[in-house]
């Protein structure tokens, strides 16, 4: 009988689910959003439908991400740092340094044999996160998905002097009004984020290969800007958003099998597929 495992990654912006057996059976990406925060169960249902299995078929479930506590039906919580490392290693075993750019956090992770050896994380300021890019995209009226492509046509990145997201937003609107081109502006936005992220990631002695995960990796312009700042090429996995959830599902499998080897039964959550009632 085939065994199924699930990883649920509740990010600040996106909720991701991966169902895994010995390969990826289903992946779902949905917004986290205000109401969705407690609705990890709904996203999970979607994933189950896609994989055409039932909740009872899942042998072990791991939740990760900043809202990992809000998944009552998860059997265990593991931080996104460990999960990203695991997920990425399962896809690209040569990678030693991961840069993760999420909605609220940016991180640098060093891995060896799929295990974390050190990591860094940004402090509580929106500058240098995916949120910064979202806000800027919104205020210049360019869809987030197009930011990357458009910035590649820039002649020269327009420098943005404010670090604060709020100030930078005004600065950009003004620059736009005074005739700066949109591609140049977007390139400037990417550069601003890349500068902050690279300064942080450089605290880890960077070893190649370097990969980028999280939503930021979907932005080719940002990836290019990062490559310039870090002075090396960067690998982008095929679906960077799901790296954390994938890692969680792989870990679910590993942990389950370890229990099995030791002849023990894993402790499982007593909650069914229900809404979250406690929050963090």
């Amino acid at each position, binding site marked *: 009988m085939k065994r199924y495992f699930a990883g649920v990654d509740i990010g*600040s912006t996106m909720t991701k689910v991966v169902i895994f057996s010995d390969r990826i059976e289903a992946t779902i990406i949905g917004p986290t959003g*205000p*109401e969705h*925060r*407690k609705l990890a169960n709904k996203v999970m249902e979607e994933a189950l439908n896609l994989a055409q299995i039932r909740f009872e078929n899942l042998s072990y479930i791991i939740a990760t991400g900043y809202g990992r506590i809000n998944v009552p039906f998860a059997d265990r919580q593991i931080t996104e740092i460990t999960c990203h490392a695991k997920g990425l290693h399962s896809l690209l075993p040569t990678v030693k340094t991961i840069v993760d750019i999420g909605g*609220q956090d940016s991180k640098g992770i060093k891995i060896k044999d799929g295990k974390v050896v050190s990591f860094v994380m940004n402090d*509580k*300021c*929106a500058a240098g996160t995916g*949120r*910064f890019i979202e*806000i800027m995209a919104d205020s210049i009226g360019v869809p987030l998905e197009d930011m990357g492509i458009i910035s590649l046509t820039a002649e020269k990145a327009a420098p943005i002097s404010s*670090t*604060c*997201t*709020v*100030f930078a937003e*005004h600065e950009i*609107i*003004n620059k*736009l*009004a005074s005739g700066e081109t949109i591609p140049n502006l977007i390139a400037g936005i990417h550069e601003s984020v890349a500068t902050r992220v690279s300064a942080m990631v450089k605290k880890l002695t960077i070893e190649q290969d370097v990969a980028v995960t999280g939503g930021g990796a979907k932005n080719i312009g940002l990836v290019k800007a990062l490559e310039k700042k870090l002075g090396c090429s960067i690998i982008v996995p095929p679906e960077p958003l799901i790296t954390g959830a994938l890692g969680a599902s792989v870990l679910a499998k590993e942990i389950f099998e370890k229990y099995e080897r030791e002849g023990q039964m894993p402790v499982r959550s007593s909650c069914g597929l229900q809404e979250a009632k406690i*929050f963090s």
Partner: protein
Amino acid sequence: MAFFLGIDVGSGWTKAAICEDNELKSYAIVPSGGDYKKAAKEATNLALKKLNLSVKDIKCTVATGYGATMADFANDVISDISCHAKGISVLFSNVRTVIDIGAQFTRAITIDNDGRIINFIMNEKCAGGSGKFLQVTARILHVNIEELGRLSLESKKPVEFTTACAVFAESEAISRISEGARPEDIVAGIHKAMASKIMTLVTRVGMNPDYAVTGGGGKDIGLVKAIDNELRSKAYIPYEPQITAALGAAIFASSK
């Protein structure tokens, strides 16, 4: 008979005020958007229209605010801190401390009896605690910014906010809502957090029992009440706090 124009090109809103003999005759408020030049023209035209005047009737114009230099039709530029001071002094001659809450910047100004600056202080590199908070809050609660004040007054148990970042305050507020916090408690929490930041500025610049709250934030009675609580006194509030600097600029224009 002569008319004078003050134009305040703020980072969020552009305000125009027209005076005759130091008396406010008309005003207009429009969003600044990206194009400050356009906003300045728009606000001016709106204010003129209310009086059935045209640009030619304006004898002198003073521009102020974040984008003042973009109002290229003005005869002079004066900093918005001076203009706030001037504007308040014609409205309330006894006020000695002005708290201006704009979209990005919050400042505290002390003024002398001629409405000139003695001292001022403003937030620096971080927009934590600025008027931006109010905009963000209104947006996520799906209410008009005008309603925040009233809502806040209904609160019995303001939410304690842990983040000072104007951007992450949004996510925090959203989480609180989904945990079941009441909208009024969220607003009151935001107001409290802002008031305590503002309190720091005021203490540093010099507190005076006769103080006024100006700028867009002055329109928010909840915020004003939170400030009053912190300062243990009662603020003077102009009829239209947001145009205080524009009014001051118009007064300056009259004396040119």
